């Protein structure tokens, strides 16, 4: 299993970051290689499941994700099967008036991509992808806030 841990400070309230980043509908918007999310099912306890199509090194993989743990505005753990096996832990913590969002993932590189490209390249690509996802979430929430503030200022 490969491991990645990345973190970003977002100038937005924890509730807002949690609402956005824990909603699978938003993944294709900020996650470059997440081609598609479908069949989202939300349960009463806050857990959800969904199907996904993900592209790694040009190869498309189909999989399914289930939430295994959810503490609102604090922590979400998901487990993915088929296509690319992985466990994601998303942590949300208040920090300096904003939110520290941390993602930790453990994943297995599929044999089909290892046949195609060298492992160090794939590991680096996935690390960069995780950094990009966090930076995109930050931009999405902070820039939307700026726009809202701008509109309010015009009134």
């Amino acid at each position, binding site marked *: 299993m490969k491991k990645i841990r990345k973190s970003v400070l977002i100038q937005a309230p924890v509730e807002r970051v949690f609402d956005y980043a824990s909603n699978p509908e*938003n993944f*294709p*918007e*900020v996650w*470059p*290689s997440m*081609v598609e999310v479908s069949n989202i099912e939300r349960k009463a306890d806050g857990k959800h499941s969904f199907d996904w199509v993900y*592209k790694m*090194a*040009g190869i498309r993989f189909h999989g399914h994700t289930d939430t295994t743990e959810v503490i609102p505005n604090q922590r979400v753990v998901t487990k993915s099967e088929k296509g690319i096996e992985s466990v994601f832990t998303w942590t949300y913590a208040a920090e300096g008036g904003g939110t520290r969002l941390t993602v930790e993932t453990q994943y297995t590189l599929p044999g*089909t991509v290892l*046949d*195609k*490209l*060298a492992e160090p*390249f794939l590991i*680096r*690509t996935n690390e*960069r*992808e995780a950094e*990009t996802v966090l*930076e*995109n979430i930050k*931009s*999405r929430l902070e*820039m*939307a806030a*700026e*726009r809202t503030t701008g509109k309010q200022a015009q009134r």
Partner: protein
Amino acid sequence: MAKLRKSISIHAPVDRVFAYATNADNVPEYWPSMIEVSNKKDLPSGGHEFDWTYKMAGMRFHGHSTPIEYEQNRRLTVRNEKGIESTLVWSFEGENGGMRLTLEVEYQIPPTLLGKLAQPFILKLNERELDSVLENIKAITEATAPVATNVQARTSVH
């Protein structure tokens, strides 16, 4: 039109980087949001035209790419129509025993996206995407013998 210009130093021969980066078959491998390339047709003037499906900020767009300037191992200018109108200029220059790859993009943000998301967010997203594209091309083309073997193996996979 929005404009982006990114550049990267690559420790690999110019012809190797040119052959890899300008082959449409490789685009989904190094371009994270490029979902699919299809209907590739080689052109007698060099390069090829092709159809593509691209995801920008979660929305899918279909388009067609045509080379309008092709200078082997030096420069490729590509015009994209439909989905996302854009012009891409790829420049390849020898530098310090390796090469410098520069990509300039002029593009129109699709109005459907502007109605949904803030423009600064979309611009930032695309800027990060371009960084990833160049970093991926660098990593793949700098890789040495073991990967060259894998590239040969890839032929049999497809």
